[in-house]
């Protein structure tokens, strides 16, 4: 299908200032064009909602850690078998799998597409495990995607900071992103995972020191990596998971982190998990208002929410100390894998219950962040899948944002013990519009990811389009789009998945000063158990994204 006309839908394309206008969308050779001839195939979208394909800025779908989680929850898989879809596409073999909270690879691709999402990023891949992540992405059909490389506890990076060599640290980062085929820099609990590996059980504050010189602190790690993303002209800002996730009072850490990066472009991920104030006796309470007001006032900052949805979850993170604490408090089974020289990995299955006070608070904090946000372009819809809940719960989350009656009904059911001071209990009236939903689920994340051809339907954009049938129940509308078009191919027709082309890999390969490889090689020779030559993943199926021209600090090639 090379030419396509999506006829007569009501289009929401916020990047092009189109807010509910009836118009046709034409696609030729995978891209949006002005017009196509009458012979083009047609999709009848009259009376329907047309948006660009969804873009997930933060999910966990392809990594060594995701596989640890898959392995840990066979009971969840058994509850949700996923037969192969009835594809009419003979170029690919339809594959069965499992759903549940951590679906298998093929099912992940099918289900994202079935939800109208066409681009997905795994937010946390240990560089050492990059090959595994690419292998899983190869078998995650339809969606374009890539991953962010974990760098916030990387030993060579810490050593370079320790030696006062932040510029060289930047060159190392550039090398590492290219070597692993990553798309962006990820920081998870900067310094705190390394401290956990050393046996610390303390909170990690921004000026906790790690190195011999006193120069290595979470603050220095953050500054170095945020500056690196800027200097390397990376399409996405450094993606930050702050220190002290989940702990009461962590809003202070989050605010301090935002302040230290003031004026610099930074993305704060699953902000919900980092927006807790504390009562005088050390219990949780909402700190959402203070956090989101800071975000509102600082245009260089963006965030995704990491909403908690009631039901099953699997917490999986490089922030291994958090998982240890969760295991001790919940008694659920626990997997931990310390990853040499780089990061950690922890997994604990979890359940968010309406009648559990902390879960109810987390749910409320997420909604407060959404509803008090003043700029939808800088707040992104996410559940930190599968940490706050599955990506399959996005439609229900959309309904919570768009339908106050539905939201208030749920609010009345949840345990309110920790909700004192939450803006939600004061009666937040706001209901998201379709335009705002289009922003927080596609246009905004595409812009924040620097994906110029995604998240909109202007001429030249990727032919990724979702067509929803409106109805009384917004959740149902968003749960089963009538049509999904990916790169010009109609993958969902009349609500059924019919085609499953492979997705495209999104990655960057910034230039770097070749002199840094000597230092990297020495580090590998001394401490790594994988040879320097065996670390890079090599050529990927798709070419790297173009970057703005950049001259490495010492004249690299």
């Amino acid at each position, binding site marked *: 299908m090379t030419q396509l006309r999506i006829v007569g839908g009501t289009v929401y394309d916020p990047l092009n200032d189109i807010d509910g206008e009836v118009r046709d969308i034409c696609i030729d050779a995978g891209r949006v064009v002005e017009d196509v001839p009458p012979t083009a195939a047609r999709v009848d979208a009259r009376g329907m909602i047309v948006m660009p394909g969804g873009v997930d800025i933060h999910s966990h779908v392809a990594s060594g850690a995701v596989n640890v989680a898959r392995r840990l929850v066979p009971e969840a898989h058994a509850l949700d078998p996923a*037969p192969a879809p009835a594809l009419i596409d003979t170029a690919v073999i339809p594959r069965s799998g499992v759903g549940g909270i951590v679906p298998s690879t093929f099912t992940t691709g099918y289900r994202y597409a079935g939800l109208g999402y066409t681009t997905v990023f795994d937010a946390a891949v240990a560089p050492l495990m990059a090959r595994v992540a690419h292998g899983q992405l190869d078998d995650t059909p339809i969606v374009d995607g890539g991953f962010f490389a974990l760098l916030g506890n990387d030993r060579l990076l810490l050593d370079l900071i320790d030696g006062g060599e932040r510029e060289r640290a930047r060159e190392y980062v550039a090398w590492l992103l290219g070597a692993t085929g990553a798309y962006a820099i990820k920081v998870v609990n900067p310094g705190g995972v390394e401290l956990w590996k050393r046996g610390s059980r303390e909170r990690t504050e921004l000026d906790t020191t790690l190195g011999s010189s006193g120069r290595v602190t979470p603050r220095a790690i953050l500054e170095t990596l945020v500056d690196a993303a800027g200097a390397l002209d990376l399409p996405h800002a450094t993606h930050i998971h702050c220190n002290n996730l989940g702990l009461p009072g962590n809003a202070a850490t989050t605010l301090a982190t935002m302040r230290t990066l003031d004026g610099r472009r930074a993305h704060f991920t699953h902000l919900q998990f980092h927006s807790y104030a504390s009562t005088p006796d050390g219990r949780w309470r909402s700190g959402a208002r203070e956090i989101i007001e800071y975000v509102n006032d600082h245009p260089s900052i963006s965030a995704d929410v990491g909403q908690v949805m009631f039901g099953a979850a699997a917490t999986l993170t490089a922030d291994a100390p958090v998982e240890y604490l969760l295991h001790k408090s919940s008694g659920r089974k626990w997997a931990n*894998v310390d990853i040499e020289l780089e990061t950690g990995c922890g997994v604990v299955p979890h359940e968010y219950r309406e009648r559990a006070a902390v879960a109810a608070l987390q749910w409320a904090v997420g909604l407060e962040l959404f509803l008090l946000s003043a700029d939808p372009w800088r707040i992104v819809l996410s559940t930190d899948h599968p940490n706050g809940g599955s990506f399959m719960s996005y439609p229900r989350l959309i309904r919570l944002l768009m339908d106050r009656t539905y939201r208030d009904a749920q609010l009345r059911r949840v345990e309110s013990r920790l909700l004192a001071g939450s803006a939600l209990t004061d009666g937040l009236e706001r209901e998201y519009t379709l335009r705002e939903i289009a922003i927080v689920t596609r246009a905004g994340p595409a812009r924040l990811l620097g994906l110029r051809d995604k998240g909109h339907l202007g001429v030249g954009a990727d032919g990724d389009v979702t067509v929803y049938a409106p109805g009384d129940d917004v959740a149902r509308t968003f749960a089963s789009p009538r049509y999904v078009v990916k790169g010009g191919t109609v993958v969902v027709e009349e609500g059924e998945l019919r085609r499953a082309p492979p997705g495209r890999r999104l990655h960057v390969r910034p230039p770097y000063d070749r002199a840094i490889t000597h230092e990297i090689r020495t580090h590998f020779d001394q401490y790594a158990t994988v040879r320097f030559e065996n670390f890079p993943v090599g050529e990927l199926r798709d070419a790297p994204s173009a970057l703005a021209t950049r001259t490495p600090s010492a004249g690299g090639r």
Partner: protein
Amino acid sequence: MGDGYGMSAATVTANATCLGCGCACDDIDVVVDAGRIVEARNACSLGAEWFADGRVPTRCLVDGRDTSLESALTRAAELLFTARRALVYLAPGLSCESQCHGVAIADLLRGVLDSATTDTALDVVLTSQERGYASATLGEIRNRADVVVFWAVDIEQRYPRFLSRYAPLPAGRDLDAARASRTVIAVDVGGATAPRDADQRIAIDPADEVATLIALQALVTAPPDDRPALGAREGRAWAHARNVATTLLAGRYVALVYDAEPDERARRSSRRFETLAGLAQKLNDSTRCAAVAMRAGGNRSGADAMMTSRTGYPLAVDFARGYPRYLPYDGSASACLARGEVDTALVLGDAASVPASVAAALHSVRHIVIGPRASSALAGPAVVVAIDTGVAGIHSDGMALRTDDVPLPLRPALPGLPSAEAVATTLVGHLAARGRA
């Protein structure tokens, strides 16, 4: 192939990955001269045996007669497609890519999918699913572990370079000195002997093993004030545990190394893996601890990981209902063969590494073997099709996982032979085409 008399120049493939055991050493320089491997530098005895001279048979057999690859594949596809119930068996010796093809074939045929893990490391896998695990990649052990416990693992025989590559011999990023900064505890259980060079050694009767581990768990989780009383209890298990607990608790980062695939020299409780994993998890309440359950060679961890990512389950998957079901006991290859449920089997990988019980059961069904030395390994009238391929890592590339799931590239020193991956890709194509027809 050159004549070898002064004409050939040796070539060296540097940094090749060895799949002789789960250590997956990736620093092997493979020297090839006149079409043969003449040296595998840095390799241990298992590695030298694994690389050997790199010469493998290159036959394609149907009903014992030589034929072309294409006709062998056509026959294989026909057998599989007309099977009432097919088994796809992932033997050791495959790249991850080939393992994924095996998963695809089983899915397509609604067959049974299993791997060698079920007959060699089932208890470790099930324990990891039931209670989780506290572990680390091997480099973390190298860089950090100041206490290393080898628990009933013949490390020098089964994983010969572990000691020099991971611990205790190398210097570590977070250790002052190399061997001198580590305390090595050797726990011998029955005939399994830990390294000679240990700082502390205890020998345990297999019958006392689980009791000792439980006593150890009790000691390391007890409040410090209660430990003397517990430690004063009588009995061999408490005596052993007392010996070890103090050292464990004094460690900053404890590595607990054991063999996920122990041999049959001693009857052991199936609970031993649960208590080992539990001990490692519980030690994290007082210090840091990582358990390392070693796997044997041939990318066995890869099979678990590829099956898990693509089906949700690490072994013994049944696609009969059109989706994967996990049947780790009843649905293993051995169980399905024993019940006579399977009428056709596809063995992918090195047939010589198929566990003996599975190999014996395979005699009762017609089967297809695709992998290194297929034409010779599982001889007998039940072998209808045998397609020799090269060895992943010697003749073809791809990815393999170390015992700790760290991925490594395979660098073929002798490229050119058909790979299991290529043959399996073609087979998938044949089957898909038949499915559409």
